[in-house]
Protein backbone atom coordinates (compact mmCIF):
# COMPACT_ATOMS: atom_id res chain seq x y z
CA UNK A 1 0.00 0.00 0.00
CA UNK A 2 2.83 2.34 0.89
CA UNK A 3 4.60 1.44 -2.35
CA UNK A 4 1.46 2.23 -4.33
CA UNK A 5 1.12 5.58 -2.54
CA UNK A 6 4.75 6.42 -3.25
CA UNK A 7 4.26 5.52 -6.90
CA UNK A 8 1.16 7.69 -7.11
CA UNK A 9 3.02 10.63 -5.59
CA UNK A 10 5.96 10.11 -7.92
CA UNK A 11 3.70 10.04 -10.97
CA UNK A 12 1.78 13.00 -9.69
CA UNK A 13 4.95 14.99 -10.09
CA UNK A 14 4.86 14.21 -13.82
CA UNK A 15 1.86 16.44 -14.37
CA UNK A 16 3.26 19.74 -15.63
CA UNK A 17 3.22 22.44 -12.98
CA UNK A 18 2.69 25.81 -14.65
CA UNK A 19 2.30 28.78 -12.36
CA UNK A 20 -0.08 31.61 -13.14
CA UNK A 21 1.66 34.20 -15.31
CA UNK A 22 4.42 31.91 -16.54
CA UNK A 23 3.32 32.06 -20.18
CA UNK A 24 2.16 34.76 -22.53
CA UNK A 25 -1.15 34.08 -24.23
CA UNK A 26 -0.82 32.15 -27.46
CA UNK A 27 -2.80 32.54 -30.70
CA UNK A 28 -6.54 33.02 -30.12
CA UNK A 29 -5.84 33.56 -26.41
CA UNK A 30 -4.52 30.01 -26.06
CA UNK A 31 -3.40 29.04 -22.56
CA UNK A 32 -2.81 25.90 -20.46
CA UNK A 33 -5.99 24.00 -19.58
CA UNK A 34 -6.33 25.32 -16.05
CA UNK A 35 -5.57 28.92 -16.98
CA UNK A 36 -7.15 31.67 -19.04
CA UNK A 37 -5.75 34.52 -21.04
CA UNK A 38 -5.99 37.86 -19.30
CA UNK A 39 -6.48 40.40 -22.12
CA UNK A 40 -5.32 43.24 -19.89
CA UNK A 41 -1.83 41.81 -19.54
CA UNK A 42 -1.62 39.23 -22.30
CA UNK A 43 -0.58 36.62 -19.74
CA UNK A 44 -2.03 33.19 -19.01
CA UNK A 45 -3.32 33.38 -15.45
CA UNK A 46 -5.61 31.51 -13.09
CA UNK A 47 -9.27 32.09 -14.04
CA UNK A 48 -9.87 34.30 -11.02
CA UNK A 49 -7.20 36.77 -12.13
CA UNK A 50 -8.52 37.50 -15.62
CA UNK A 51 -8.94 41.20 -16.39
CA UNK A 52 -10.66 42.73 -19.42
CA UNK A 53 -8.77 44.24 -22.31
CA UNK A 54 -7.47 47.76 -21.91
CA UNK A 55 -5.23 49.81 -24.14
CA UNK A 56 -2.97 50.73 -21.24
CA UNK A 57 -1.57 54.05 -20.19
CA UNK A 58 1.52 54.18 -22.36
CA UNK A 59 -0.36 54.76 -25.61
CA UNK A 60 1.00 57.46 -27.90
CA UNK A 61 -1.69 56.94 -30.49
CA UNK A 62 -4.28 59.71 -30.32
CA UNK A 63 -7.91 59.20 -31.24
CA UNK A 64 -9.78 60.10 -33.32
CA UNK A 65 -7.65 58.86 -36.19
CA UNK A 66 -10.07 56.52 -37.89
CA UNK A 67 -9.73 57.99 -41.39
CA UNK A 68 -7.13 59.47 -43.67
CA UNK A 69 -8.64 62.90 -43.07
CA UNK A 70 -8.11 62.63 -39.33
CA UNK A 71 -4.78 60.82 -39.48
CA UNK A 72 -2.38 61.40 -36.60
CA UNK A 73 0.73 63.25 -37.70
CA UNK A 74 4.02 61.52 -37.05
CA UNK A 75 6.72 64.05 -36.26
CA UNK A 76 10.47 63.99 -36.59
CA UNK A 77 10.91 61.81 -39.60
CA UNK A 78 13.96 63.29 -41.26
CA UNK A 79 16.22 61.86 -43.91
CA UNK A 80 17.96 58.87 -42.42
CA UNK A 81 15.92 59.53 -39.34
CA UNK A 82 15.92 57.75 -36.06
CA UNK A 83 13.17 55.29 -35.43
CA UNK A 84 9.82 56.84 -34.57
CA UNK A 85 7.61 54.51 -32.57
CA UNK A 86 3.92 54.76 -31.85
CA UNK A 87 2.21 52.66 -29.19
CA UNK A 88 -1.30 52.11 -30.46
CA UNK A 89 -4.38 50.12 -29.74
CA UNK A 90 -7.41 48.76 -31.57
CA UNK A 91 -10.04 48.06 -28.93
CA UNK A 92 -13.25 46.27 -29.87
CA UNK A 93 -15.40 48.52 -32.03
CA UNK A 94 -12.52 50.80 -32.97
CA UNK A 95 -11.99 51.15 -36.70
CA UNK A 96 -8.72 51.71 -38.47
CA UNK A 97 -5.90 53.83 -37.11
CA UNK A 98 -4.38 56.29 -39.56
CA UNK A 99 -1.07 58.12 -39.38
CA UNK A 100 0.55 60.54 -41.75
CA UNK A 101 4.10 61.70 -42.32
CA UNK A 102 5.86 63.92 -44.80
CA UNK A 103 9.12 63.04 -46.48
CA UNK A 104 11.49 66.03 -46.29
CA UNK A 105 12.14 67.58 -49.69
CA UNK A 106 15.88 67.36 -49.14
CA UNK A 107 15.84 63.56 -48.93
CA UNK A 108 17.10 61.59 -51.88
CA UNK A 109 16.61 57.92 -52.70
CA UNK A 110 14.63 57.43 -49.57
CA UNK A 111 12.83 54.29 -48.43
CA UNK A 112 10.18 54.25 -45.72
CA UNK A 113 10.55 51.31 -43.39
CA UNK A 114 7.61 50.30 -41.22
CA UNK A 115 7.42 47.54 -38.67
CA UNK A 116 4.16 46.64 -36.92
CA UNK A 117 4.41 44.48 -33.79
CA UNK A 118 1.28 43.18 -32.11
CA UNK A 119 0.29 40.50 -29.67
CA UNK A 120 -0.09 37.05 -31.15
CA UNK A 121 -2.96 36.42 -28.74
CA UNK A 122 -5.51 38.80 -30.21
CA UNK A 123 -6.82 39.90 -33.58
CA UNK A 124 -4.13 40.13 -36.21
CA UNK A 125 -3.32 43.56 -37.61
CA UNK A 126 -2.10 44.69 -40.96
CA UNK A 127 -0.45 47.87 -42.19
CA UNK A 128 -0.67 49.59 -45.56
CA UNK A 129 0.99 52.67 -47.01
CA UNK A 130 -0.90 55.13 -49.20
CA UNK A 131 0.69 57.73 -51.42
CA UNK A 132 0.21 61.49 -51.74
CA UNK A 133 -3.11 61.23 -53.54
CA UNK A 134 -4.40 58.43 -51.32
CA UNK A 135 -3.41 55.74 -53.78
CA UNK A 136 -2.28 52.38 -52.46
CA UNK A 137 1.48 52.06 -52.36
CA UNK A 138 2.34 48.91 -50.42
CA UNK A 139 1.14 46.47 -47.78
CA UNK A 140 2.94 44.47 -45.15
CA UNK A 141 4.94 41.32 -45.63
CA UNK A 142 6.81 39.01 -43.32
CA UNK A 143 9.78 40.56 -41.55
CA UNK A 144 13.25 39.15 -41.97
CA UNK A 145 13.24 38.18 -38.34
CA UNK A 146 10.08 37.54 -36.39
CA UNK A 147 9.73 35.68 -33.13
CA UNK A 148 6.12 34.70 -32.50
CA UNK A 149 7.28 32.52 -29.60
CA UNK A 150 7.92 35.77 -27.73
CA UNK A 151 4.21 36.52 -27.89
CA UNK A 152 4.46 39.01 -30.71
CA UNK A 153 3.84 38.82 -34.41
CA UNK A 154 5.60 41.32 -36.62
CA UNK A 155 4.96 42.48 -40.15
CA UNK A 156 7.13 44.82 -42.15
CA UNK A 157 6.81 47.19 -45.05
CA UNK A 158 9.51 48.88 -47.09
CA UNK A 159 8.60 51.29 -49.86
CA UNK A 160 10.50 53.91 -51.84
CA UNK A 161 9.02 57.33 -51.17
CA UNK A 162 9.12 60.66 -52.99
CA UNK A 163 10.84 63.63 -51.34
CA UNK A 164 8.42 66.34 -50.32
CA UNK A 165 5.40 64.05 -50.58
CA UNK A 166 2.92 63.23 -47.86
CA UNK A 167 2.05 59.62 -47.03
CA UNK A 168 -0.53 57.94 -44.89
CA UNK A 169 -0.19 54.73 -42.94
CA UNK A 170 -3.21 52.62 -42.08
CA UNK A 171 -3.21 50.06 -39.27
CA UNK A 172 -6.31 47.87 -39.41
CA UNK A 173 -7.57 44.54 -38.12
CA UNK A 174 -6.82 41.81 -40.63
CA UNK A 175 -9.75 39.67 -39.53
CA UNK A 176 -7.85 36.64 -38.25
CA UNK A 177 -6.91 35.38 -34.82
CA UNK A 178 -9.82 37.06 -33.09
CA UNK A 179 -11.01 34.00 -31.15
CA UNK A 180 -13.94 33.74 -33.60
CA UNK A 181 -15.03 37.20 -32.61
CA UNK A 182 -14.20 36.77 -28.94
CA UNK A 183 -11.04 38.87 -28.91
CA UNK A 184 -11.46 41.59 -31.59
CA UNK A 185 -8.79 43.84 -30.08
CA UNK A 186 -5.06 44.25 -29.89
CA UNK A 187 -2.24 46.50 -28.85
CA UNK A 188 0.56 47.35 -31.24
CA UNK A 189 3.77 49.23 -31.76
CA UNK A 190 4.36 50.89 -35.10
CA UNK A 191 7.97 51.72 -35.84
CA UNK A 192 8.69 54.05 -38.76
CA UNK A 193 11.94 55.18 -40.28
CA UNK A 194 13.15 56.95 -43.40
CA UNK A 195 16.38 55.53 -44.68
CA UNK A 196 18.56 56.25 -47.64
CA UNK A 197 18.35 53.54 -50.21
Amino acid at each position, binding site marked *: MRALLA*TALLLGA*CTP*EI*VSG*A*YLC*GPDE*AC*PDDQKCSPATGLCVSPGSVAAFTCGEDQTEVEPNNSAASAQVVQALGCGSALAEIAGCTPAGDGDDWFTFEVPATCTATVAHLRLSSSIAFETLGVTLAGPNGSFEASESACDASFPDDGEVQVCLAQAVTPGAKYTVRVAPAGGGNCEGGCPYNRYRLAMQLATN
Partner: protein
Amino acid sequence: MSRLLPAICMLALVVPRLAHADKDIVIEIPGERTTEQKILVGSLAGAGFVVGAIGAYFHYDSRQASDDVGSDTYTGHAWTAEDRVLVDQADRSRTRAIVGYSIGGALLIGAIVAYIVTDPPSESVVIRPHGRGSAMLTPTEGGAMAVGTWSF
Protein backbone atom coordinates in the same frame (compact mmCIF):
# COMPACT_ATOMS: atom_id res chain seq x y z
CA MET B 1 49.51 -50.30 16.40
CA SER B 2 50.24 -46.84 17.75
CA ARG B 3 47.76 -45.39 15.22
CA LEU B 4 45.11 -48.01 15.85
CA LEU B 5 44.97 -47.40 19.58
CA PRO B 6 43.38 -43.92 19.54
CA ALA B 7 40.76 -45.09 17.00
CA ILE B 8 39.79 -47.99 19.18
CA CYS B 9 39.51 -45.67 22.14
CA MET B 10 37.22 -43.36 20.16
CA LEU B 11 35.02 -46.22 19.03
CA ALA B 12 34.82 -47.39 22.55
CA LEU B 13 33.18 -44.11 23.37
CA VAL B 14 30.85 -43.95 20.33
CA VAL B 15 29.68 -47.49 19.78
CA PRO B 16 27.97 -47.89 23.13
CA ARG B 17 25.96 -44.78 22.40
CA LEU B 18 24.91 -46.09 19.00
CA ALA B 19 24.14 -49.40 20.46
CA HIS B 20 22.01 -47.89 23.21
CA ALA B 21 20.26 -45.24 21.09
CA ASP B 22 16.57 -45.86 21.47
CA LYS B 23 15.33 -42.65 19.73
CA ASP B 24 14.33 -42.51 16.05
CA ILE B 25 16.54 -40.54 13.66
CA VAL B 26 14.46 -38.12 11.57
CA ILE B 27 15.88 -36.80 8.30
CA GLU B 28 14.17 -33.94 6.45
CA ILE B 29 14.42 -34.28 2.67
CA PRO B 30 13.49 -30.92 1.05
CA GLY B 31 11.00 -31.16 -1.83
CA GLU B 32 11.66 -29.78 -5.28
CA ARG B 33 9.40 -27.76 -7.60
CA THR B 34 8.43 -29.25 -10.90
CA THR B 35 9.77 -27.75 -14.09
CA GLU B 36 6.35 -26.30 -14.90
CA GLN B 37 6.20 -24.59 -11.54
CA LYS B 38 9.67 -23.14 -12.00
CA ILE B 39 8.68 -21.85 -15.45
CA LEU B 40 5.52 -20.33 -14.02
CA VAL B 41 7.30 -18.47 -11.22
CA GLY B 42 10.13 -17.38 -13.52
CA SER B 43 7.76 -16.22 -16.22
CA LEU B 44 5.67 -14.19 -13.82
CA ALA B 45 8.72 -12.56 -12.27
CA GLY B 46 10.35 -11.89 -15.65
CA ALA B 47 7.19 -10.45 -17.15
CA GLY B 48 6.73 -8.33 -14.04
CA PHE B 49 10.19 -6.83 -14.39
CA VAL B 50 9.79 -6.24 -18.13
CA VAL B 51 6.39 -4.56 -17.80
CA GLY B 52 7.65 -2.57 -14.82
CA ALA B 53 10.63 -1.44 -16.86
CA ILE B 54 8.30 -0.32 -19.65
CA GLY B 55 6.34 1.61 -17.04
CA ALA B 56 9.58 3.23 -15.86
CA TYR B 57 10.38 4.24 -19.44
CA PHE B 58 7.04 5.99 -19.80
CA HIS B 59 7.53 7.55 -16.37
CA TYR B 60 10.82 9.00 -17.60
CA ASP B 61 9.21 10.20 -20.84
CA SER B 62 6.39 11.82 -18.89
CA ARG B 63 8.88 13.45 -16.58
CA GLN B 64 10.88 14.85 -19.48
CA ALA B 65 7.84 16.32 -21.22
CA SER B 66 6.58 17.69 -17.93
CA ASP B 67 9.90 19.37 -17.18
CA ASP B 68 10.04 20.84 -20.69
CA VAL B 69 6.69 22.59 -20.44
CA GLY B 70 6.31 23.16 -16.70
CA SER B 71 7.52 26.38 -15.16
CA ASP B 72 7.33 28.16 -11.83
CA THR B 73 8.64 31.47 -13.20
CA TYR B 74 7.82 33.82 -16.08
CA THR B 75 9.04 32.22 -19.29
CA GLY B 76 8.66 35.10 -21.72
CA HIS B 77 7.19 32.67 -24.22
CA ALA B 78 3.73 32.41 -25.66
CA TRP B 79 1.67 29.30 -25.12
CA THR B 80 1.81 27.41 -28.40
CA ALA B 81 0.55 24.22 -29.97
CA GLU B 82 3.94 22.64 -29.25
CA ASP B 83 3.43 23.26 -25.55
CA ARG B 84 -0.01 21.67 -25.79
CA VAL B 85 1.59 18.63 -27.44
CA LEU B 86 4.09 18.34 -24.58
CA VAL B 87 1.30 18.46 -21.98
CA ASP B 88 -0.62 15.77 -23.85
CA GLN B 89 2.53 13.68 -24.11
CA ALA B 90 3.20 14.02 -20.38
CA ASP B 91 -0.37 12.98 -19.56
CA ARG B 92 -0.36 10.09 -22.01
CA SER B 93 2.99 8.74 -20.82
CA ARG B 94 1.91 9.17 -17.20
CA THR B 95 -1.15 7.01 -17.83
CA ARG B 96 0.99 4.39 -19.55
CA ALA B 97 3.47 4.46 -16.67
CA ILE B 98 0.66 3.86 -14.19
CA VAL B 99 -0.63 0.95 -16.27
CA GLY B 100 2.91 -0.46 -16.60
CA TYR B 101 3.63 -0.17 -12.90
CA SER B 102 0.26 -1.67 -12.00
CA ILE B 103 0.54 -4.67 -14.31
CA GLY B 104 4.23 -5.16 -13.51
CA GLY B 105 3.51 -4.99 -9.79
CA ALA B 106 0.62 -7.41 -10.11
CA LEU B 107 2.82 -9.84 -12.01
CA LEU B 108 5.57 -9.62 -9.39
CA ILE B 109 3.05 -10.17 -6.62
CA GLY B 110 1.71 -13.09 -8.62
CA ALA B 111 5.23 -14.48 -8.88
CA ILE B 112 5.66 -14.22 -5.11
CA VAL B 113 2.29 -15.90 -4.51
CA ALA B 114 3.12 -18.63 -6.98
CA TYR B 115 6.48 -19.14 -5.32
CA ILE B 116 4.79 -19.56 -1.97
CA VAL B 117 1.93 -21.73 -3.25
CA THR B 118 4.19 -24.06 -5.20
CA ASP B 119 6.61 -24.47 -2.34
CA PRO B 120 6.89 -28.29 -2.19
CA PRO B 121 6.55 -29.96 1.21
CA SER B 122 9.68 -31.51 2.58
CA GLU B 123 9.66 -35.24 3.22
CA SER B 124 10.57 -36.64 6.61
CA VAL B 125 12.34 -39.97 6.76
CA VAL B 126 12.46 -41.73 10.13
CA ILE B 127 15.33 -44.04 10.79
CA ARG B 128 14.78 -46.51 13.61
CA PRO B 129 17.70 -48.26 15.26
CA HIS B 130 17.43 -52.00 14.66
CA GLY B 131 17.85 -52.99 18.24
CA ARG B 132 20.46 -53.01 20.91
CA GLY B 133 23.78 -54.56 20.58
CA SER B 134 23.67 -54.70 16.86
CA ALA B 135 26.74 -52.54 16.44
CA MET B 136 29.81 -54.18 15.07
CA LEU B 137 33.39 -53.06 15.22
CA THR B 138 35.60 -54.11 12.38
CA PRO B 139 39.32 -53.36 12.48
CA THR B 140 40.74 -51.84 9.37
CA GLU B 141 44.19 -50.83 8.35
CA GLY B 142 45.11 -47.82 10.44
CA GLY B 143 41.78 -47.77 12.31
CA ALA B 144 38.45 -49.45 12.74
CA MET B 145 34.93 -49.27 11.29
CA ALA B 146 31.74 -49.15 13.36
CA VAL B 147 28.70 -50.68 11.72
CA GLY B 148 25.13 -50.50 12.92
CA THR B 149 21.80 -51.61 11.47
CA TRP B 150 18.57 -49.61 11.43
CA SER B 151 15.21 -50.06 9.82
CA PHE B 152 13.24 -47.40 8.05
